[in-house]
């Protein structure tokens, strides 16, 4: 029986649950000094002077540096050619600080706590500049420019805003338009950022950094330090979550390496939670105007999405994420006409980067809200509107108006399955009863259908990943992978894939990753790519290894390779029809190193899809929403380990739902962050979540032999609009059409108040 598709428990867990992981802060680095960042306390100011003299006198201080000390370092190049080089972030602020939390000096001490004290003694002489916080105002440029040299606060545009068709909605019976907020959130991984660095006498750097892809981190460090990537070795210790925000390297990581070189002594840094919340990149932060038009029979004829992306103070990956949002704008729907355009603007806030889903959740949130707005306007069941507009099942790739090539999908089946699993009509009956009874607590049912893109890759020749599988004479095996697990469970699944081919027990297989000397190439883990490319590479390497071993076994047995059969149960080759004449893989490994490195190339990205249904109870008096049920179909093709896939769905649902009604990173008008601890940033906890109801559906892809698509972000994408739609649905009979996220008790109450005022105004005067 195949081990694939079975519920193998995570082989990682015994160590994490007993001895504990070894995170970057746990890495022993004798003699290391501690780097403390001095961060801007103001959102926008010209720096007249940074005086470190008092800090230098403080106990334990070894050195202190400002931007002026970094003269030899290159300015980081822009994340995309679209972005002006004027908008580059220096590693330490030079003349201007542009967000609260921006590093502007470092203090280096013997012990970490000394740095916290000494940092307070660094005196910064500011000349305040007006803070640009609101993205609309930033786009208008009227309240000032962050980078006068760039001539505008607009960092990038996507699509042709001037070319939007004035006749897009011609012929529609109904057109609905609304501006909605996809708010800024904080990734808040359990392990905050960290770095440890040492240089050998030959001038080569070894850096331990929690990351999502050591090879990418190496390239980013080398670029920021102005050195050859070959001079950098990145080692990835255990990583406590990333959610997109640990790709590459941040200025702080490079500065720790720079300090170690400058002082000729190992250096390290581990940030606090408070630091993490303001200084790690944030996510989402789009303002979207959706316009949807169609006929009263429920057919949507046209859809337009206009995006204003808040990129934060320095354009990072978030500045280009609207490209992904536009690509996925129509989602799983067969709309007749679709347009999408975007602008990314800089503001005096923390830079925006990737956050679980990275551009696709924003697309889904927009179109799913639009569908519900349209359904409400034509007074049709939102499930029915979706059913009428979903693309029909397809088995050959489908190319969208934006050029996305959906590999395989059956969206109507996913919707039907989730409605059935949830008991949709019964829920609507219960809702009607509650509305008729008129109690304070009303029921809301929310839907979302989604399709997303996973494993996009940027490699010439299609997305790819490498793997090495080696069998040792003692019967054990080692896998080297270019992926970078930080909670996903690759060690378990990659071992399952190798074991399936080689017959070696899971316990004898070790997976290694994240050390660039050991695995010089790799795409890391992000964009839900790992299994479909990294896992496929492991399978391919194991199969190639069996082929190689077959040739060698044939030589040893003096038989034709075609006459040999591989017996995975014994991990041995035997002559067909004569099982006693055999040679085990261990014997082959003993006579000559038995290893294969291979690169798996995919024809393209894959497009997982699904449908989510959320049930909420909303207290119409206090405004508090309670999530009662989440029922999901998340079709990611073939599942290799259901337990791990469900874990990804659980985490994804919680994270997506949290955006709908709990989490928001906010600023006041002066750019002061308001949500700098978990007491104010309403990070989701288990008590806000019901048990999740997961329905199974698997439509394999032909883009890899496993048939697998990505599952890491899918449930995050589906959950947010389902929960938001459910909250609005609970209030629909009271005249509410929309509540911005997070739908806090206060926001819901305010929406009810506004609807009540509007309702009274509409009533005929008697």
């Amino acid at each position: 029986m195949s081990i694939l598709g079975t519920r193998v428990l995570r082989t990682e867990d015994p160590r994490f649950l007993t001895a504990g992981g070894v995170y970057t802060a746990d890495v022993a680095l004798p003699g290391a000094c501690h780097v403390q960042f001095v961060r801007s306390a103001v959102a926008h100011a010209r720096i007249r002077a940074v005086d470190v003299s008092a800090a230098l006198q403080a106990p334990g201080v070894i050195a202190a540096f400002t931007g002026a000390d970094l003269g030899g370092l290159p300015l980081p190049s822009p994340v995309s050619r679209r972005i002006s080089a004027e908008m580059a972030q220096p590693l330490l602020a030079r003349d201007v600080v542009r967000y609260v939390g921006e590093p502007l000096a470092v203090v280096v001490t013997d012990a970490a706590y000394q740095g916290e004290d000494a940092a307070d003694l660094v005196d910064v002489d500011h000349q305040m500049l007006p803070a640009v916080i609101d993205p609309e105002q930033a786009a208008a440029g009227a309240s000032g420019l962050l980078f006068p040299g760039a001539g505008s606060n607009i960092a990038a545009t996507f699509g042709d805003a001037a070319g939007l068709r004035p006749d897009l909605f011609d012929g529609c019976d109904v057109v609905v338009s609304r501006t909605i907020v996809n708010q800024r959130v904080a990734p808040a991984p359990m392990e905050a950022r960290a770095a440890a660095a040492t240089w050998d006498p030959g001038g080569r750097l070894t850096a331990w950094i929690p990351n999502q892809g050591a090879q990418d981190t190496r390239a980013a460090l080398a670029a920021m330090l102005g050195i050859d990537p070959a001079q950098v070795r990145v080692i990835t210790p255990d990583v406590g979550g990333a959610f997109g925000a640990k790709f590459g390297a941040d200025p702080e990581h490079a500065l720790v390496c720079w300090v170690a070189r400058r002082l000729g002594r190992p250096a390290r840094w581990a940030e606090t939670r408070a630091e993490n919340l303001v200084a790690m990149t944030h996510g989402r932060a789009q303002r979207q105007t959706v316009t949807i038009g169609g006929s009263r029979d429920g057919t949507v004829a046209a859809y337009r999405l206009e995006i204003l992306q808040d990129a934060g103070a320095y354009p990072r990956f978030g500045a280009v994420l609207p490209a992904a949002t536009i690509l996925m704008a129509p989602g799983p729907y067969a709309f007749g006409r679709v347009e999408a355009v975007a602008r990314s603007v800089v503001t005096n806030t923390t830079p925006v980067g990737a956050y679980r889903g990275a551009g696709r959740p924003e697309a889904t949130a927009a179109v799913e809200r639009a569908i519900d707005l349209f359904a409400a306007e034509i007074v049709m069941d939102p499930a029915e509107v979706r059913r009428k507009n979903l693309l029909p099942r397809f088995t050959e790739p489908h190319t969208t108006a934006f050029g996305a090539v959906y590999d395989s999908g059956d969206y109507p089946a996913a919707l039907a399955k989730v409605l059935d699993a949830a008991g949709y009509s019964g829920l609507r009956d219960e809702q009607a009863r509650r509305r008729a009874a008129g109690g304070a607590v009303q029921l809301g049912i929310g839907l979302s259908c989604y399709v997303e893109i996973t494993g996009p890759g940027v490699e010439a020749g299609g997305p790819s990943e490498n793997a090495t599988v080696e069998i040792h004479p003692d019967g054990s095996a080692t896998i080297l992978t270019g992926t970078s697990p930080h909670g996903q469970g690759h060690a378990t699944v990659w071992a399952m894939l190798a074991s399936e081919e080689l017959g070696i027990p899971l316990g004898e297989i070790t997976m290694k990753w994240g050390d660039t000397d050991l695995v010089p190439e790799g795409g890391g883990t992000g964009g839900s790519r790992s299994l479909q490319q990294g896992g496929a590479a492991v399978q391919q390497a194991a199969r190639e290894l069996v082929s190689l071993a077959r040739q060698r076994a044939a030589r040893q047995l003096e038989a034709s390779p075609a006459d040999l059969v591989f017996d995975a149960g014994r991990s041995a080759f035997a002559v067909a029809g004569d099982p006693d004449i055999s040679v085990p893989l261990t014997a082959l490994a003993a006579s000559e190193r038995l290893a294969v490195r291979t690169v798996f190339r995919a024809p393209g990205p894959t497009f997982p899809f699904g449908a989510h249904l959320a049930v909420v109870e909303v207290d119409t008096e206090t405004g508090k929403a309670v999530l009662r049920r989440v029922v999901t179909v998340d079709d990611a093709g073939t599942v290799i380990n259901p337990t791990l896939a469900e874990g990804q769905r659980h985490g994804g649902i919680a994270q997506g739902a949290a955006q709908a009604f709990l989490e928001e990173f906010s600023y006041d008008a002066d750019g002061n962050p308001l949500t700098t601890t978990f007491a104010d940033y309403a990070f989701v906890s288990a008590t806000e979540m019901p048990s999740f109801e997961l329905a199974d559906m698997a439509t394999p892809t032909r883009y890899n032999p496993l048939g697998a698509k990505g599952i890491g972000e899918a449930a995050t994408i589906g959950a947010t609009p389902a929960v938001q739609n459910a909250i609005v649905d609970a209030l629909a009979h009271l005249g509410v059409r929309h509540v911005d996220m997070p739908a806090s008790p206060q926001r819901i109450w305010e929406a009810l108040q506004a609807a009540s005022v509007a309702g009274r105004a509409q009533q005929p005067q008697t």
Partner: protein
Amino acid sequence: MTRLSLGKHGKAMEFLQPTTLAEAIEAKAAHPGAVPIAGGTDVMVEINFDMRRPGALLDLTRVPELTCWEQASGDGVVRLGAGVTYARLIAELGGLLPGLAMAARTVGSPQIRNRGTIGGNLGAASPAGDCHPVLLAAGAAVQAASVRGTRLIPVAEFFLAPKRNALHSDELITSVLVPRARGPQQFAKIGTRNAMVIAVCAFALELRPARVGSGDEGSVGTGIGSAGPTPLRAPAAEEFLAGVLADAGLWESAGPLPDPVLRRFAELAAAAARPIDDVRGTAAYRRHALAVLARRTLAWAWDSYRAGRGASRCG
């Protein structure tokens, strides 16, 4: 008493660790700037964020007198040692002081409830302290001790301003005297999530039924949290409700409370609040939500009063 000097380089922090109440009081007199610490759930947060650097910490966790509670004989008052934790309020005092146990259940996480104490909650004097509305509603008193003696401070006079209380610099909270419940008590709060969050607003209610033949016409206690510079009472709401209950003979009849009474009580309770706009909520929302909580807690409390009366009639 153990004394440790922590810290280095001239920024020493004294750590005073008395083992008896007498030692503790003497230490406080000798170090009036010392910050008392019990569970540390407030003090350590402030120290970790460098919002304060006290010259000395006065650790009260080894003072056995502070960790006891007792029901003083005869007068129906429960004396809670300042070091009684939220977890113990829930486990041991749900019968005598149900409102306090309800409030304690909403505090933080299990870890916080195991560490945090009622004395610490009072000492921090946060407008959002979860015990405060209940203690106000119950008409509790804080017992403060110093080398000069002891005094009782009514809880309604204890909170002076955000994070400022009525203690003198040489005083410690030794206990809280809370009249045991002789009628229904309720507590409710609204937060942005279910746990580990500072309340947007909170309301506590206590009904003290009339005692036939004693001349006691009954009374009502209220407490408001997170909607003013200090925890507040709503005296007009208390007087209104007590008047209605007495005048209409509702204590005796245990009849239903008319809806206008519930609504008027809610209005008066909300009017007593002095909320501000902040990151957790606007003043307008807080006032509205308080009215909802006041109406609901009254409905629940009156239902349980009526159920209790019904039960006694049947028995």
